[in-house]
């Protein structure tokens, strides 16, 4: 049964494990002309291995910025993020990229498939970047797993939105990441496609024992996670 909590305070770690992902005092400010805009402030959170966490909030609440910081795609104005024990921002950009390549999978609202590549090639890409020789076989298997065995040679423009997001799921899980970061994974999909994609996402998450952090404004989707955090005006709130 999914359990729903809402807290501004970090979840106390279980005694026998340390969190896979932890944010401590994370803040993000940007300057816009003479004014300083606070996007995130004092974010504290910890995600345990295997946990599924949803971060919900209205548009402009800073969800995507938080996800970018948790992934090390952006740098914070304050605070630290630890991924699997490593302080992300003590690493340089290239080292963070390597860490991502090893441990993190992504699913985006806009899919982010490369338009020039076929479905198969899109899934092969992270494996190829990691220098895996069995890239094609593994990618085929994963695409078959998401139900796209017949669409390997199709380019994204010739796939439906739901199919594109399945390809994106296959690309995310094919490297067996420890952490999956999902940014509004159903934001671009109709209700039927969204339901299918979500089923698949949680199934794969279970099978791969992946830790999931999902940003969404869809409460029903958030409800399927183990825990839900609310973000409002740049702060995690109850």
């Amino acid at each position, binding site marked *: 049964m999914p359990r729903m909590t809402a807290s501004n305070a970090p979840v106390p770690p279980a005694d026998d494990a340390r969190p896979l992902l932890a944010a401590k005092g994370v803040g993000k400010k940007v300057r816009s002309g003479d004014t300083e805009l606070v996007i995130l402030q004092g974010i504290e959170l910890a995600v345990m291995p295997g946990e599924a966490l949803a971060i919900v909030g209205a548009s402009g609440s800073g969800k995507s910025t938080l996800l*970018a910081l948790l992934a090390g795609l952006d740098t914070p104005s304050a605070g630290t993020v630890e991924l699997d024990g490593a302080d992300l921002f003590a690493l340089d950009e290239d080292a963070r990229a390597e860490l991502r390549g090893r441990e993190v999978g992504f699913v985006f609202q806009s899919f982010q498939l490369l338009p*020039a*590549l076929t479905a198969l090639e899109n899934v092969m890409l992270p494996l190829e970047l990691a220098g895996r020789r069995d890239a094609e076989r593994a990618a085929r298997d994963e695409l078959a797993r998401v139900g796209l065995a017949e669409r390997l040679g199709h380019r994204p423009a010739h796939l439906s939105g739901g199919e594109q997001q399945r390809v994106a799921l296959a690309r995310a899980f094919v490297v067996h990441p420890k952490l999956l970061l999902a940014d509004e994974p159903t934001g671009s999909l109709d209700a039927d496609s969204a339901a299918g994609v979500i089923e698949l996402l949680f199934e794969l998450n279970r099978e791969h024992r992946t830790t999931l952090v999902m940003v969404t404004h869809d409460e029903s989707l958030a409800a399927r996670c183990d825990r839900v955090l609310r973000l409002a005006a740049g702060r995690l709130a109850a």
Partner: protein
Amino acid sequence: MIGLALRMLARDARAGELRLLAAALAVAVASVTSVGFFADRVSQALLRDAHQLLGADLALVSDHPWASAVSEEIARRGLERAQAESFVSMAQAGAGDATPSAGASLRSQLAGVKAVSASYPLRGTLRIAPAPGAPDAPAAHGPAPGTVWLDERLVSALGAPVGGRVRLGAREFTVAAVLTLEPERGIGFFNLAPRLLMNLADVPSTELVQTGSRVTYTLYAAGPRAARRAFERWARARLERGQRLEDLESGRPEVRASIERAQRFLGLTALLAAILAGVAIALGTRRFVERHLDACAVMRCLGATQARLLALYGLEFLALGLAASTVGCFGGYVAQEALAGTLGSLIGTELPAPTPLPALQGFLVGLVLLLGFALPPLVQLKNVPALRVIRREAGRSRGAYAVYAAGAAALTGLLVWQAGDVRLGAYVVGGFALAAAGFAVLAWLALRVLASARVARFFGAGSSAPRYGLANLRRHARGNAVQVASLALGLTAVLLLGFTRNDLVDAWRRAAPPDAPNRFVLGIQPDQVAGVKAFLASHGIGAPEIFPMVRGRLVAENGRPVSEKSFADERARHLVEREFNLSFAAEPPGYNRIVAGRWANARGQPAGLSVEQGIAERLGWKLGDELTFSVGGQTFTAPVTSVRKLRWDSMKVNFFVIGPPALLEGFPTSFITAFRVAPAQDAAMNALTQGFQNLTVVDIGAAVRQAQGVIDQLISAVQFVFLFALGAGVLVLYSALVATEDERRREAAVMRVCGASRAQVAGSQRVEFLAMGLVAGALATVGAAAIGQLLALRVFDLELPLNGWELVAGPVAGVALLSLNAWVSARKVLKTSPALTLRESS
């Protein structure tokens, strides 16, 4: 890593991402190599045919017989050889009678006799006709023993038709043909007399060559360059007094001038092709980078390091460069082959096979262009932040135009290399760099004005299409400025080719006009000048300038005695060995140009000499050097006060040294003049020699025709190469237009989604392109005209008048080109459903 890079290449190629870039690169390499291949072949042909004027690759000239060892050495080195003996002798024939010995009506004429071996000439051809005025044909070899060939003048002077008999010394010969063309027909002592060509084996039987006879012995050699060079070195080391070696370089200044000019034209053309290539590559890469920003962000997100991305894309581009350059080289070869085949008659000579060097050059050009113009933007690609996957506005490709500095530097190096002439390269590169910067700024300003609120209001009353179009102009001001500047650059190159092709070539033709003099009259005595002038005027020949001529020998330089031994250079020795034709004049000849010092020959000024640039360089004369000449036992000394540049190809009377009248007037003087006579005026020439029997009338018509032929051929070659680069320029222009197609398609799709009609979409594009075309065309016209003038004045040394139609041609071409593009682009946009366009671009 290499495997992945190649797979990326294959994927991008399949997706059509590389089509434009590969095409631009292949076109660039193809144009560079086809010009290179063709120029290589033309240069080879020019060099070979220019040898026609020498009759061989190499001529060894001596005033005494050559040792047999020299002749044997030619053969030993695998070179072809031929031999000639030239001397002046009286030829006799009975008037209209085959038996000159019959007596009474014997006609005599001093003839320039040239006795040649069977293999003469080694380069070029002899042409003969069965009768004066009859069509001529090439002859496989010289006259057979026992026969002679006479030129037309000698035929008419002796009254000896083909089949008639001519006596030369102790022997009679049958006239076998009329000689219409021979190599070496230049201006020289032996050419003053009409030509008689005979077989070398017959010379002893004439008994004309005795001890003390003035005979010139010439050995000719021709063959592969390496062997020729080796023999040249060998022979040079063994030259004795009275012997010299002539090759094309030392032989004929007028031919050399033409070839140098041709090489500059070809260099310029290759250079412009390379500039067009650079523009296309830059545009192609920009498009590639813009389309790969997202892909790079995703790959960064998936764990690729910056170094990895750079290496992957670098390798992908390297592979692309190799493949496209290979295709380009092949295409260039096929293109030049096909074009040389179909346009062979225009070139007017058979072209030798190209050397592989242009292919190698093309390859290097392709890679340098790609690395110079593609690598800097690719570096930008690696810097794309992974954040872009979440925030699209992150890592937008900013107009980092500074990154093209490396490309520009690479291109500059290439251009100078291609031009083979630093000054020419520098002018064109400088011109284009200035034009590029100026164009971008001017284009931006001009587009701002066109898109200003006032102009928009003006159109506001009418259809909405112009308003949308102008609004687009405003929105895209910066991008459009770059686009317009690129287009203007491409158009500039095309227009510059157009301008130079027509005008520079015309100006060149004017320098060697078809009315070049074809008669020189020598030996006019001071008291005959007035009479000769009156004669020429009364026979409709006009009033050619008559120049005084004093023959003097250079005896000292700055007080130090000078002899031929003072110089190591063969040509310099030859110059010093003989008497100079000195002249005097108060004013410099109109067709000479003072390039250093000042003309100081006007009356009342201190004595000073004006010397020709080439001889001054060869003999090491500088301004202020005191030269002492000996004229008939008396000497005079004067400083060099000016250096003149001559136009040898103008065929006018030219002097190496011109002194002030006050200094030279007292010396024995004869006069010389040159003018053109029509074939119908030959009788007047006969009357001239009858009226003034001491005059020597030199028919240089044949020499002029020969030189003119070579020059015409050079012009044909240059024009052809120009045509090809013009075609390449148009292709590159198209590439530039396609480069922004994506963005416009997307915008048009959005417009249609928002309810714009097809006419509105097409109309707004038309207005936008029309404005851009107008601005690009106007800029290109100004740029091309300016560069053309600069080139004409500074490099080619020609006057280039401005042409009215050229001022219109640019804008018209720009508008036409972009209207066509707007039409094609609108068709494409309207054919694809907006939904698909948007989905593909999302």
